[in-house]
């Protein structure tokens, strides 16, 4: 864009309209900085929870105000605030808040001195996620991605006295760096082909002959592959189980829900970069991802690892909407529908997954590994409420009705069915049967196996914060499953 004067350029970039749009990200960033300040001001540590709560609730509210009156594209079109981004933002803040609540009392003595840094993650991560979904510019997305990822790499290795944690951190960092490089290479090839990195300008170019050149296609492919790494799509999913298992569980929660959601929040709107001929490829990748995740999960005995694989399978399910969108010949209306389907699915997944990882965090209590199938045997006899909540989450992950997971699946399949992809939809549906195979194993162990005094007897009591967070997650799952209209109304 060219401007007549500096004043023009300035006006384009900074207007008062931009402030409410970027406010959520600003609040989160300021909160994260405050958290660092707390660490260096003597005697300020006690105010940690207040800062976390105030920041996240503030971000929730700031996003909420954008819901009814979104600012649209601001800052010279590199950032946009829409009802969808407002909902994403609210989900990120809510997810971070829930994960943070579960982290209270999770860490042992050794990690205590670094809790401010730990808490900072729960503020910088949603800030990065918000930037990712709001970005209308390939570089802006990258900034958000790194803002999210760099602290996550460190937090994965947070329990540095444990080998698996250090391994998780290193693995996550190396593969993340590789993904970032792939993404950047793709973005630079796109720039080479088109001369722009603005999403809106790229979109306007679609249909041009320029977009069928090898350079453009290679760029689009690499860019998308870089994001595929982040959402753990086959064949880029190998790192997931090790990293999820090794990281502290509250951090895993954030990785599993927020990172995936934010990457999809950007990927679906930019999937127009892919040619319509890629429909079959994307559908095949999605189905393979589901198969890899489900088959991997089927043989796990560690529930955390099982949930990691199940997360891979869920990413595959959501990826199906992109296949549907491409099959429609990149129809904008279908694109919006695909985005909304993914939003609903991920909203349900966020509550479900946060709840189940959170309960695992509670069972685990840093080191006391009760997160194996054996470890939860007969838990229902000792903690019926915990078992009931876990059961609800498992059923939601399996997509059984009256839970949010069911309507998520419904909306995803609707996108496919609309494009006449019945075969893909049926294959996808049958994958869920495999998935139920391992979700049911958790329920079997919780309720139907005899109580194992030696293992389950050591279960820590339910703390008040964890209890509240679990109740909120369960409520979210049920509301999405019984009154999906409330959420759909937000989308307008």
């Amino acid at each position, binding site marked *: 864009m060219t401007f007549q004067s500096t004043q023009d350029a300035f006006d384009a970039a900074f207007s008062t309209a931009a402030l409410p749009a970027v406010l959520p990200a600003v609040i989160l960033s300021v909160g994260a900085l405050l958290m660092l300040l707390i660490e260096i001001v003597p005697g300020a540590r006690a105010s940690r929870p207040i800062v976390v709560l105030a920041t996240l609730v503030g971000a929730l509210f700031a996003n909420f105000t954008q819901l009814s009156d979104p600012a649209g594209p601001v800052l010279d079109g590199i950032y946009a605030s829409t009802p969808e981004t407002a909902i994403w933002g609210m989900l990120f803040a809510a997810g971070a808040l829930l994960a943070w609540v579960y982290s209270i009392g999770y860490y042992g003595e050794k990690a205590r001195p670094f809790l401010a840094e730990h808490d900072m993650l729960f503020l910088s991560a949603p800030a990065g996620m918000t930037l990712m979904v709001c970005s209308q510019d390939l570089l802006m997305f990258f900034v958000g991605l790194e803002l999210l990822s760099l602290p996550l790499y460190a937090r994965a290795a947070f329990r540095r006295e444990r080998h698996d944690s250090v391994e998780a951190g290193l693995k996550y960092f190396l593969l993340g760096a590789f993904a970032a490089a792939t993404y950047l290479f793709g973005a630079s090839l796109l720039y080479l082909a088109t001369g722009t990195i603005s999403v809106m300008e790229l979109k306007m170019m679609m249909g041009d002959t320029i977009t069928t050149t090898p350079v453009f296609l290679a760029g689009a492919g690499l860019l998308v592959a870089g994001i595929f790494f982040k959402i753990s799509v086959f064949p880029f999913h190998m790192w997931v189980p090790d990293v999820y298992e090794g990281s502290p569980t509250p951090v895993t929660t954030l990785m599993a829900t927020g990172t995936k959601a934010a990457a999809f929040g950007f990927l679906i709107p930019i999937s127009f970069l892919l040619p319509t001929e890629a429909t079959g490829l994307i559908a095949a990748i999605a189905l393979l991802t589901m198969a890899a995740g489900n088959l991997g999960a089927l043989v796990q005995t560690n529930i955390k690892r099982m949930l990691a694989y199940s997360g891979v399978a869920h990413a595959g399910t959501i990826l199906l909407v992109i296949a549907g969108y491409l099959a429609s010949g990149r129809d904008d209306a279908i694109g919006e529908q695909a985005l909304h389907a993914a939003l609903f699915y991920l909203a349900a997944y966020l509550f479900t997954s946060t709840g189940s990882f959170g309960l695992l965090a509670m069972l685990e209590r840093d080191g006391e590994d009760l997160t194996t199938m054996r470890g939860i045997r007969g838990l229902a006899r000792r903690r019926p409420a915990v078992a009931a909540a876990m059961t609800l989450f498992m059923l939601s992950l399996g997509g059984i009705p009256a839970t949010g997971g069911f309507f998520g699946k419904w909306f995803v399949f609707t996108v496919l*069915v609309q494009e006449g992809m019945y075969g893909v939809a049926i294959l996808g549906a049958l994958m869920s049967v495999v998935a139920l195979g391992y979700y049911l194993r958790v329920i*079997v162990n919780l309720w*139907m196996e005899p109580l194992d005094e030696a293992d389950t007897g050591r279960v820590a009591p339910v703390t008040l914060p964890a209890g509240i967070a679990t109740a909120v997650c369960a409520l979210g799952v049920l509301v999405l499953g019984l009154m999906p209209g409330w959420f759909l109304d937000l989308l307008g």
Partner: protein
Amino acid sequence: MDSLTALTFLPLVGALIVLAMPAAKEKAIRLVALATTLVVAVLGIATYLAFDGASAALQGTVEAAWFTLPYIGGGEGVPVHFRLGMDGLSVLMVGLTAVMMPIVILSTYGHIHTRVKEFFVWMLVMETGMLGVFLSMDLVLFYVFWEVSLVPLYFLVGIWGGANRLYATVKFFLYTVAGSLVMLVAIIALVHMTGSTDIGRLMEMASNTDIVSLENQSWMFFAFALAFAIKVPVIPFHTWLADAHTEAPTSGSVLLAGVLLKMGTYGLLRFAIGFFPMMALQNRELFMALGAIGIVYGALLAMAQTDIKRLVACSSVSHLGFVVMGMFALTETGLRGSVLQMVNHGLSTGLLFLLIGMIYERRHTRAIADFGGVALSMPIFAFFFIVSMLSSVGLPGLNGFVGEFMILLGSFEASPLWGTIGVTGVIFGAIYLLSATRRLLFGPLTRKENEELQDLNLREVGLMVPLVLLCVWIGFKPNDFLSELDGSIDALVVRIEAAETQLQLDETALFLDDSTPEPAVALVEAAQ
């Protein structure tokens, strides 16, 4: 609150009350559960009596907006309703469910002694699920109830079942869910094509080739049929049933046989046939064959069993083969007979499972070889067992006869071959049930344990009396019950006949070409 909503959700309210009670108060929990189901039974019978069988219209309809499925249906979105209603196809099922539940609850006094509170919570949730399935008149609502009703049985078998319960319950769940998910895709496609989730309206639209093309009707028919066939179960999907029945606690078996399997046959009737009559006609032979094979195969399986409970479970496969065969005969007699037979099977097999449960509580074995001469020590038990067995065999004067007779009559009209094969099932049925009865009840008392058996007590007799009375009532005056079906079955038959005409016209149209005289083409097109 209107009666159908109350009927559906009262058990859920009961479940919540039980949930709030302390687990130690087992007596009070049992009473609350019994009271809830009794109230529901009274409500159910009242609804049943108020039903006008001559009308084909939905009765007692309740409708409230639920939410809107966005996008589909030309961008407007499709409103989904909380819609309940009852017609001739469901009225008997609702009555059966309402009557069975208190009996089942009463039967649990004998065999549920652990985790009592959880048990009754699931029991009551299950009743809501089952009634919801039969009463839902919205496709989305139906699907929600359909899958939700799986969960309680999963827990009932998994926690209170026999030695091999975990295998049985997971198998049951996965089998059923696999079918359901394929159906889910068909449901989504159907809602997308028709822009409606109202089951009444879908009946009109789903078979309209302008709205849903024949190819789409074809795969959707099979998707629906698959889900329900697994639930029934139709051969070759029957393997889960024997396991689930054998491992389930008595009350679970009774419910499974009495009501849950009927969800499958009910679904076949209302959705597979009701939505896609043309496809049902085209695949009539296939399903009649599956039914007939089920009858014979189930009977042969039953003959080979040494476990009395497994024997009755296999006899279920055989009896439900009758229902499927009669239904897919697609004749008025066959349809009426199969609906009645659903009730009959619920009553007689339910009774048999109750009786087997009672003797298992006393002897802790189900092997037929462990018994013999039980009639000497337990005459009352023997009486009830023989009545139930004869009802199951289809002795004239008892309920089973009427249903099987009508089904065979209807099947002969449609296909003499499969009808004939079906008849042999009656003979086989008599063989395995009579011989099992002989080995169980008669002969000398060879074992000491069997000499000391206590006969049935008042509770056990009392809970079976209503079922036996119903068996006799249906046996002597089936029209009291069949008349409830008149309106709905007539309407269904009219639709099937219309579909038949349409199919013949389509076939004729295939032969139309340029050489066909103009008037003939015009005639065919007008008729279409």
